[in-house]
């Protein structure tokens, strides 16, 4: 997956280091280092291949190509790409994991009321 156009996403480049709480109401692409907490609620977080996140994440969708250390709560879906290294618990409705991705933690797929679970795919 290529980095999205900066006009579509808020973009944190690979030389950027952020410590603290990140929240927003637009989609976010992180290819740098973030340590603290990330809250996007109804938007998506994409961790680029150079991204290193040490934070608990709350978002609608979370796509991980880099490294994430923390709990992820995604109201819609989580995708672990083949280069992803994730240490932490994942709570979501749908999850996709590519061959080669690394996960150390719990996966809990929550059912949305009235809908069936869309399970993991590779």
């Amino acid at each position: 997956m290529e980095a999205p156009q900066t006009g579509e996403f808020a973009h944190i480049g690979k030389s950027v280091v952020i410590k603290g709480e990140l929240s927003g109401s637009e989609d976010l692409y992180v290819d740098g280092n973030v340590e603290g907490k990330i809250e996007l609620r109804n938007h998506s977080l994409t961790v680029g291949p150079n991204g290193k996140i040490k934070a608990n994440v709350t978002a609608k969708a979370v796509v991980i190509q880099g490294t994430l250390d923390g709990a992820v709560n995604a109201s819609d879906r989580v995708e672990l790409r083949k280069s992803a290294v994730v240490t932490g618990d994942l709570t979501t409705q749908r999850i996709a994991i590519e061959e080669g991705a690394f996960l150390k933690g719990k996966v809990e797929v929550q059912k949305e009321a009235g809908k069936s679970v869309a399970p993991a795919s590779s």
Partner: protein
Amino acid sequence: MASVSDNVMKFFRSSSNQTVGPAAPKKPTRRSSGMGEISRLLNSEEGLCVLDMGATSASNIRFFTGKGHKIYSEDLLWSSLDPALRIQDSAGNPVLDSKKFLDENLVYPNAHFDVVLCWNLPDYMEESLVKPTIDRLWSVMKPGGFLLAFFHTRDAGPDSICYRYHVTATDLLEMQEVKVAAPGRPASEKKSPRLQRVFNNRHIENLFRDFASIKFFLARDAIREVLVVR
């Protein structure tokens, strides 16, 4: 009767390799009596906690979460290769620091898991870590919980293939050859884990002596399945 032009087109279609790629190699499968017994529990209850001690497997996550269970993924074989675990004992011999290993891995509350899928970990893990790991598993499993492990029945040689198991149906496992690099090392250094030893029945019974019961299933592929109840 097909026209000449049809036959020419058939020829080009069949000889072209641009649209039809080579078929992906089919992974071998095996029936697992132990997994079949665990599946009966999985089908009868919801919200169980399952610990998968193999490499991250989308198939297993799909299988267990699809049945409404929580799955924990922790690749202990990979973790055991961490160079930071290597220390020297009082005689100067290189050993693995089992205390540090258990400080960093299998850190869960007591009586947390209903099912532990150990797979072939004890056969491939360094000797000094095996017993402490099984003892920790006893602590984190619920009384009555199931543990499934696979052991070679004869010495297949140190270069025997190490498989990672993917659950594809109630008692059917897909086998994928595993190659690992130590934590922090590049993928180019991946290699097949070496079979460390072959446990006989008595060794296995000793290994799980604190557990409530143990059941052996012998399979045709020289693998002994062991289903242990905590």
